[in-house]
């Protein structure tokens, strides 16, 4: 018995120590960034770990000098529109794939899955050419509409609708409700976890997106937060207190959303491991 207890505590000690090594490796760069954001340039050069007087003023300076208000607005407008657009198209397509019999169902499902392999960089040249022809460069439309389809969203809703028992809608069908009404009034409320999962995934990805803005945006007032951050980096390369403050400002919305909806985000990641 004694041996067993000792072994157990040794093992749990080992687990705790290794876990803390992990946590430190992950947390230290974030803390280092945070502390830097509150220092004066002199303190940065001296290399003290903690700031002497916490200069929250740096955040105001970074917010103003990076001209963040407009960039926050742009990021938010595009992120929320793309997110809602994806929820609508994915819920509709996922419902058809889960509940309707039609020609080409398997094919369309495979295409939706395969589409996830194609990244923004792969199609950027032809997409740029197309958006230029449409006159959508440097506009919200160009940043939003091409992103209204998401193969993962279609997959997510299909999988979720498959788990909902059929008798729930059959009652509504008997009552003579149209398929549209069934989807919006019966199925979608039941699929709230799928809606929240896609919301978390798409909103955070859009908030964090750089590439499409870098290519498609020309005028300063159309920039988003990430593009703004890279430009701030170029301009204020030597002022690490302001640069780190700007980095934290830009990261806060997605981190807060993430902490609130972590459960759904994790569900989505685990879903991507589900066999199709």
């Amino acid at each position, binding site marked *: 018995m004694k041996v067993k207890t000792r072994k157990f505590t040794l093992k749990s000690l080992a687990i705790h120590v290794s876990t803390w090594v992990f*946590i430190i490796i992950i947390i230290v*760069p974030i803390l*280092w960034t945070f502390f830097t954001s509150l220092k004066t340039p002199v303190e940065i050069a001296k290399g003290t770990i903690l700031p002497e007087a916490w200069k929250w003023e740096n955040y105001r300076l970074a917010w103003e000098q990076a001209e963040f208000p407009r960039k926050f607005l742009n990021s938010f407008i595009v992120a929320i529109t793309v997110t809602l657009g994806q929820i609508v198209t994915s819920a*509709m397509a996922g419902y058809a794939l889960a509940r309707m019999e039609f020609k080409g169902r398997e094919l369309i499902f495979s295409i939706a899955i395969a589409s996830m392999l194609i990244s923004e*960089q792969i199609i950027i040249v*032809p997409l740029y050419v197309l958006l230029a022809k449409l006159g959508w460069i440097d506009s919200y439309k160009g940043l939003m509409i091409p992103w*209204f*389809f998401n193969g*993962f969203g279609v997959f997510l809703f299909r999988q979720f609708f498959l788990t909902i028992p059929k008798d729930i809608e059959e009652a509504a069908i008997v009552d003579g409700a149209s398929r549209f009404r069934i989807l919006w009034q019966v199925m979608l409320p039941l699929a709230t976890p799928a809606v929240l999962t896609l919301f978390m995934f798409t909103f955070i990805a859009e908030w964090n997106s750089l590439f499409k803005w870098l290519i498609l945006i020309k005028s300063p007032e159309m920039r988003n937060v990430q593009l703004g951050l890279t430009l701030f980096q170029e301009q204020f390369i030597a002022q690490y207190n302001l*640069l780190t403050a700007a980095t934290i400002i830009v990261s806060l919305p997605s981190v807060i959303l993430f902490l609130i909806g972590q459960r759904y985000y994790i569900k989505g990641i685990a879903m991507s491991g589900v066999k199709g």
Partner: protein
Amino acid sequence: MRAFPNRELRHNLEAYTFLAPALTIMIIFLAYPVLNLFYISFFDWRGLGARHFVFLDNYKMLLRNEEFRLVFKNTLIYILGVVPTTMVFSLFAAVLLNSKIKLRGFYRTSIFSPTAISFVATGIIWVWMFNLDYGLVNRVLNALGFSVIDWLRSTPWAMVAVIIATVWARVGYFMVIYLAGLQTIPEDYYEASDIDGANSLQKFLHVTLPLLKPTHVLVLVMLTIFSFRDFDQIYTMTGGGPLMSTTTLAYYIYVLSFERFRFSQGATVAVILLFLVILVQYLQRKVFGEEAIY
């Protein structure tokens, strides 16, 4: 009998009404660009002005081009640097945090938190960590008696720095996938090995590791495909340099198309990248016979 084909038609119509929004966007902004990508790669075109049909000349030129070979090699180094390291660390983190320890939720959230940060922010955090004079990494090296390294401006180290930043940001994501995989291992297997007197390491080697095979395959493929796409952290940390040593295929598409305005060459590299991604997916199915969505 006559009503039947009508009903079928009506069902098809109804289904395609529901699919229409997703399909329309997919066809116009994904399928058509993919086809056009091949088309553009057969021309000599700089985005503006005349196009000359050159068929496979762009491909021949690229394959003979030393710069392209360097970029291809960089991509392989990057993948070999990121993928196994992330796999090992995320598996290790998942096994640790699957045990019933106190503060497990806090630990999981901490390791997972870089997932919510953009790769631009991750890049800047690590530019600062790797700063020559004031960066924490060099301070630690200095304190341990090593000489400091100019991480982001010297050739082998810039790639190492980008790899470290990427692994740091990605371990949490794949830890979650491994945690989901660990849930699928039935408790009986561990109980059986307890009866056989197996220790923790033996259980890990003979139960956990082999039974996670589907998860290993999934993580391997997803990580490889993610690595093929990585752009933002390279853009913020090194801009592809020094001497193109951190330019991977995805980054090279950007350089060719939007820095040098060689649209056809950019499209050609994109076609090659597309084939590589499909190849990874194909190998997964052939070799492992797994049907995962990535």
